[in-house]
């Protein structure tokens, strides 16, 4: 089997990378981390997969259509949280309205976690879309001509 070491390594690394992405994702409220970083790490796992198994295999697992939907839903998650706080009577992104009775601003946590989740989804799918489109182009010149 071709590139056996790379493939096995990828298989081993794939899950920890996703796990790390989730770790960074859910530490976005009070620590270093959050949606931007988590999204990129999340996308990295799939990009690694594409490197070792080929783009077509990755596209089978995560088709472009799904990425577009994830991008949209991610952004809607973000602005949706904002609109929800408006409907709850606060200003845009006034997270305290999510849990108004909390004495220690629990609403701020819920709010930022929701927003970061949206950001994470959006960033991950955008990064993968960029990758798909750059690598999916047909090279129309010979390697020697570069």
């Amino acid at each position: 089997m071709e590139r056996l070491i790379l493939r096995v390594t990828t298989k081993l690394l794939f899950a920890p990378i996703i796990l790390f992405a989730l770790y960074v994702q859910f530490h976005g409220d009070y620590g270093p981390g959050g949606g931007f970083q988590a999204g990129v790490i999340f996308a990295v796992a799939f990009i690694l997969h594409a490197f070792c198994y080929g783009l077509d295999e990755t596209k089978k697992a995560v088709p472009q259509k799904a990425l577009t939907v994830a991008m949209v839903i991610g952004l809607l998650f973000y602005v949706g949280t904002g609109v929800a706080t408006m409907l709850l009577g606060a200003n845009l992104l006034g997270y305290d309205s999510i849990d108004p009775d909390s004495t220690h601003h629990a609403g701020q946590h819920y709010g930022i976690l929701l927003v970061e989740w949206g950001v994470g989804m959006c960033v991950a799918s955008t990064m993968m879309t960029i990758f798909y489109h750059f690598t999916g182009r047909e090279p129309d010149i010979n390697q020697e001509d570069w």
Partner: protein
Amino acid sequence: MNFAEQLPVLPIITPLVMAPVTLLLPKGRAPWAWATLASWLTFAACVFLLREVSASSAGFISYHLGDWAPPLGIEYRVDLANALVLLLVSGIASLVFPFAYRSVQLEIDERQSSLFYGALLICMTGLLGVTITGDAFNVFVFLEISSLSTYALIAMGARRDRRALTASFNYLVMGTIGATFFVIGIGLLYQATGTLNMADLHDKLAGNHSRVVDAGFAFIVVGMGLKLAMFPMHLWLPNAYTYAPSAVSAFIAATATKVAVYVLIRFLYSIFGFDFSFMGSAFTFVLLPLGLAGMFVASFVAVFQDDVKRMLAYSSVAQIGYMLLGLSFATVEGLTASLVHVFNHALMKGALFMAVACVVLRAGSHSVEAFAGLARRMPFTTWAFILSGLSLIGVPLTVGFISKWYLLQAAFAAGHWYAGFLIVASSLIALLYVGRIVEVMVLREPAEEGKYAIPARDAPLSMLIPMWIMVAANIYFGVNTELTGEIARRAAEALMMVAGGAP
């Protein structure tokens, strides 16, 4: 939810929520209809906002994002000056979106049409955000949101002409340098004051004379100069406007540079104010001469263009010269003239580029030859072009006349009598380049064969109606100056008061 309280954020959040949804809609009419709806809702919100602001006793409405009080939190601060620009941007959008359908059908790949409308909505969101925000760094963020979508939109013109790609690339490089300069400027101001809120910056900069602030001022003026295509920094603009899809040209020509002019006004008057040491010299040695030079050089170059869109693009650079001229007088009259011209120029350029889009739809080209004998084949489009062209020259009863009248008054009142003559002289050049196209349209025989032989059919109603609304606005605001003139004067007075009177 209290509608009145949430009003200031609605122009931003409405298109922002609706833009991503366009990607999920089925191909065909749906994305267009959805985007049009979004632009109309936004326009409605902006109209309400203008009414609210002009009725408010404080003269401005402040909205705190996330309930964080300024100067720490991000503030949306709407006063008359930006309410006017908001109305302008959303108004143009609400006409361009319905107009775009047929033009986009022709010029954009159907698979990309939902992306196109999404990007156009995001672009509008960015421009509105730049206008509405009261936070200096937020300006940068929104500016880049609108710029990035503009780069993509311009590049979509590559389906018709591959030069759109290089035009977009050059715009990207120049625009990014401009934006980065702007960020450096904001960083320097932050270093000197420790705040990013515009009102707070103004307070803390008062009496704060240091080289850091001076450098920040220079970076911001140069950065914004690149974004608004101030005369020697306009090189990205002609190609970008020429090769962009017609509907995009109509939208960005009418709004993007105007918003950048607004940002410059906001920074000069609301943040730095007149007790800032470089202010006077910036006006006398930078904005005034560059404005005058732009008026002449760009107009002169426009005369020799063989491409109507490129000609209009150079004319845009010249018109930006008028706006800079007005604000460099540093008087209420000058600032009023500048704001009025921001509004009026958007109306005339919007109408002109829409007319060109109609010609492109039927004749398939925007070179001067394609316009030959158009009066007989597309009379409605031709008359729309002629009327808005007259407005560009500044013929009485059109908006162009109003802006030039205000500008002349301001020039004489400020003692720059020579500028007054130069304004008239450059209007004569405008007569030359518009007249040249009109001559071709009306007097030249239409081509019977060859690639410009077009069927004797006018543009579809879906394009004619928005275009004629725009032309009607050109005449309406030319006759009835109450709305623009009055609001612009009050806005200018408020800005002047913040800035601290004449130097």
